[in-house]
């Protein structure tokens, strides 16, 4: 059975990436690995956005060339909206990295470890 045509392969890649990341966040005990998994999840979604905005074949960047008819341009250009989402999400991701890294550094200073299994002050 053919599970995927070439058009579906990127989506399957994104699904595998996202599942691995969610698994890692929930079940890995190292805080730094959890953090990396969250950012990989964000990157998987960024990839999903880019794939959805892309056109196979002779696509052109979303900048209108001089003299081209707008309707013809719209039929062959890639979707700029997806790129806007990705750029915004990348900037937001920076704030996430800064926040989580600062918290992990403080955790290390207090406990001397970043393994969640060894941090047991609170019971949840």
């Amino acid at each position, binding site marked *: 059975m053919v599970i995927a045509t070439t058009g579906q392969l990127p989506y399957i890649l994104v699904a595998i990436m*996202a599942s691995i990341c*969610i698994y890692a*966040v929930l079940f890995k005990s190292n*805080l730094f690995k*959890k*953090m990396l998994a*969250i950012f990989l*999840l*964000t990157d*998987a*979604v960024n990839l*999903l*956005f880019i794939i*959805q905005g892309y056109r196979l074949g002779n696509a052109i960047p979303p900048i209108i060339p001089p003299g081209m008819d707008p309707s013809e341009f719209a039929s062959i250009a890639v979707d700029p*909206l*997806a790129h806007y*989402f990705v750029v*915004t*999400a990348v900037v*937001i991701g920076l*704030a*996430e990295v800064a*926040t*989580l890294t*600062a*918290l*992990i550094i*403080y*955790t290390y200073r*207090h*406990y001397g470890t970043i393994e969640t299994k060894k*941090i047991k*002050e*609170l019971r*949840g």
Partner: protein
Amino acid sequence: MSPLLIQAPILAMLLTLLGSFLCVLFGMFMGRRAVELLSGVLTAATILLSSLALINVYLLEGPYVYYMGGWPPPVGIPYVIDRFSAPLSLAVSVIFFATMVYSVRYLEKDRDVKWYYSLRFLMQTGMYGLLFTGDMFHIFIMLELMGLSAILLVPFRKEVKASVEAGIKYGIYDILAISIYYLSTAMIFGMFGSMTIAEISAKLGGYVSPFSGGMFADPSALPVIVALIVWSFAIGAAIVPQHFWLPDAHSMAPSSISAILSGLLVQVNIAVLARILFDGFAAGSHPGGAVGLQLLVILGVASSLVGAAFMLVQSDIKRLIAYSTITNLGLITIGLGVGTSLGVSAAYLHIINHAFVKASLFMIAGVFIHATGSREIGALRGISKALPGTSLLYTLGTLAAIGFPPLSMFWSKLLLLLSVLSAGGVYPYLVLPMVVSIVFESIAQIRLLAIIYSGEKRAVNCHPSLPVILSIGIMISIIVVTGLMPNMLFEFGRLAAEDLLNVSGYADLVLKSLNYAAP
């Protein structure tokens, strides 16, 4: 109609953003008194602006859409100021003002308070944005704004070991929730080609947008997206089984922040989820969206029972109040999940009442912890003789929390039970778990009251100062006064549910710049 009235909610947002920047600047050059004065003035101004917006929506103009930057949807971001979002934004402003007055004396011994006030303002901006926005991607950005500032405020006392642990726990799971929400926005973009909530529901009904056309994919995969969104907001709103971060974060944060987290942050999450499910996925009529409502009912029942059961075994006063939040959120999600007009209005009233009750309980718990120097419930024995005024306020708050008539939460709990009973199908059986959880919660709260009123007079470290008592008094008086006017409460709830459940009216309102005609 005057532009000030139209722009009032947007100005409130801009003021809080400006305040976040100015707090750091003032703190660097002028000292903490200037920062406190500035944040006091700005939060008072946001109350005024939110009240203007409420008056405008209720009495003058009716619901309207503000085009951010002048770009009409679906190109730009619409801010929908209707009878669902305006009262909630006033509740946000009032609770932020009360906790602002409270924290001046509460944080007297802490250093670097400029960051505290700055982050508080950012969180307030995020909440306004979440309540008003009509765009899925904007919700993602505002979730980050609200979530990241809350994550940094939980371990504000970073020299305390346990508060840093609570902060990292909350941080990992909240950012995971936001990332899952981001995944679902990507899937919505692939399926609908649009991020405007109104366009999503319109396209489910067969609408063809002049910008993005019709549906990009078959809506049979919609339940997957709905489930992802419910999951992400269930982490953010601490609904069982994603509740584990809440008792830690809410009990280890400074009490002024616990009040905001427990009173507003989780409720705002639920309100946004309701907006997406009802107005975006047409949960009342479309089978794909209805999956979300069934999930909400199941999770809500589990949440109310688990929260109430854990309340019985707590020995820490703030953890007890935190588990009470989980219980009440379960009741709110049941009301939303039932999906009838009565259920949604009951859930809406419970959101607002619970916000005030829980914020005041956490603020008084902070006073008790300062006075006794301990968080254990046993240490509160005899405190009513030492701090009679504060204990009286706490008693009123607790009575409201367990639904003692005629305080405000009695009416919303009554309405929730009635809504479940009046809905068809298997829903009337839900009364049983709801009553069990309400009874368990009452037992735990009354046990705490009995400890406060028992024993001999005990020595206390300090008495609460006037601003602290005043800020708590504002909250308790709101609870009492709204409880005495049930007709007004019911009217607010009914109109909010009407605006939320009227899917085609919402799409009309947002898309009217395109001469949108409902399909």
